């Protein structure tokens, strides 16, 4: 789930009036890039680019107002894509925004494609999770399954590297290395330089995103 603003992965999304196919739930998964979606203007109407709003006090209120306006304009007919809706927002306002998102989803019976790096939000809000790394989906699973037993080494290390507010954390897992260079990405599996389980084949062979059980996909040579 790294976010690289410079990444430009082409997205083949057929756009029909007021309908954006939400790729995550389908069997053929396309690596999406949300930045391009921002350039699509209404009549889709379902995209709200909260990320670019300035993080000042008054605009927090306007974020909530924008959500409210969209709701009233009935704009979120089929899909709603909040992009990092809580980054650079204070904790209390974040909770208010999350509550509103959950209510909107319930009231409108709409699909929500939430983009975030906040695993707390994901755990509380989402039914299914697609973990992305260097432009690829590396794992896809239901929320409970993903947090219970993460399969991909990136997911596993990431989950272990986050301190908990509700528990005493003795030590954190360390993800070594840096965020990958997307201009010259690593060969084979793009995660291999940082992977605690990497073998020689990992730098030579690119794993496919494959089903390891019903409703679970992993992109890793450990499972291929």
């Amino acid at each position, binding site marked *: *789930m*790294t*976010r690289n603003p410079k990444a430009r992965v082409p997205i083949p999304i057929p756009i029909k009036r007021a309908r954006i196919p939400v790729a995550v739930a389908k069997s053929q998964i396309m690596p999406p890039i949300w930045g391009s979606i921002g350039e699509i203007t209404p009549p889709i109407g379902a995209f709200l680019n909260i990320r670019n709003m300035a993080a000042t*006090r008054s605009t*927090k*209120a306007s974020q909530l107002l924008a959500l409210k306006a969209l709701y009233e304009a009935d704009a979120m007919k089929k899909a709603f894509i909040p992009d990092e809706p809580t980054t650079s927002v*204070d*904790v*209390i*306002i*974040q*909770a*208010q925004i*999350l*509550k509103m998102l959950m209510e909107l989803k319930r009231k409108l019976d709409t699909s929500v494609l939430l983009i975030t*790096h*906040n*695993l*707390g*939000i*994901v*755990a*509380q*809000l989402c039914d299914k999770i697609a973990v992305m790394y260097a432009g690829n989906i590396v794992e896809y699973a239901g*929320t*409970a399954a993903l*947090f219970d037993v993460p399969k991909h080494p*990136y997911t596993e*290390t*990431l*989950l272990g*590297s*986050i*301190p*908990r*507010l*509700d528990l*005493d*954390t003795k030590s*954190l*897992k*360390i*993800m*070594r290395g*840096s*965020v990958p260079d997307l201009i010259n990405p690593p060969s084979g599996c793009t995660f291999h330089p940082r992977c605690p389980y990497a073998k020689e084949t990992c730098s030579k062979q690119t794993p496919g995103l494959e089903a390891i059980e019903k409703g679970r996909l992993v992109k890793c040579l450990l499972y291929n």
Partner: protein
Amino acid sequence: MSEMLLQIDSLTKHFLVEKGFLSSIVAKESRVVHAVDEVSFNIMKDETFSLVGETGSGKTTTAKLILRLIEPTSGDVRFEGRSIFKLEKDELRRLRSNMQIVFQDPFASLNPRETAGEIIGAPFKIQGLMSKSDRRKAVLELLNMVGLEPAPMCFDKYPHEFSGGQRQRIGIARALALRPKFIVADEPVASLDVSIRSQILDLMQSLKRQLKLTYLMISHDLSVVRYMSDRVAVMYLGKIAELAEARKIFASPKHPYTKALISAVPIPDPKVKMQDVLLKGEIPSPINPPTGCRFHTRCPMAKDVCSEREPALAEVDREHLAACYFAQ
């Protein structure tokens, strides 16, 4: 066993807000931002003390006052017993080598036109203590200490050639150059990718042990605060609402604001459900803070007394302070 390194005593900072030309003719009063009001606490040697709060809480202003980056309206800060506001220029320069800061944004806090070697070597240059070759040796040692290897190669690189995490390491190396006793870490990992935060936190912990450092950490990320801190002070609108050991404050918070903050944080575990946050509204303006207890306008437990008289920060449990009449 532990001695006091810093005493913060009734520290206050009010900023004047300049009114526009017309309105300053019409209404003579100038407006005041009560950024920090009568804040008192101590920081013990070798501890990690965290200041926690939302925007407008005054935590960053407090840190700047402690480092004397800005002058207080009133109150005092004593480092090893001596008031930092009464020091002369020479003494202040010596003090500065003992108190350093790591900034939040590793991009904005590094001069893009200087190499890592120049950035980290700047404190030595300013203090005027070393020859160029000694400086280079010292900088290489610091680069190794913060894990920027190979050091000679990193020495000549510019900030844009490093990743975010590496730039933060440069910032940390710069702060360590003069072997300070005390470091303020202002949101040290907030700007970093989630996957590398634990690297930097781990580095900070090991440097603390190695170099016997005392940290003041400013953060809004409560999970990081719990992991890193010995003691925590929660700030609201320029005042301390609660102060206690990290484990105690998060396991059994006493102040309603602390309770609201904690319940607002989504836990990264789907089995642990979020509770309802009972707070209404937004943080009031620090220009006209509410009367009495500043939190009363949003507090689910507020009674009449809360708007009339401000509660003092008092002990509600052993070594656990809260500013609330109904703390429990």
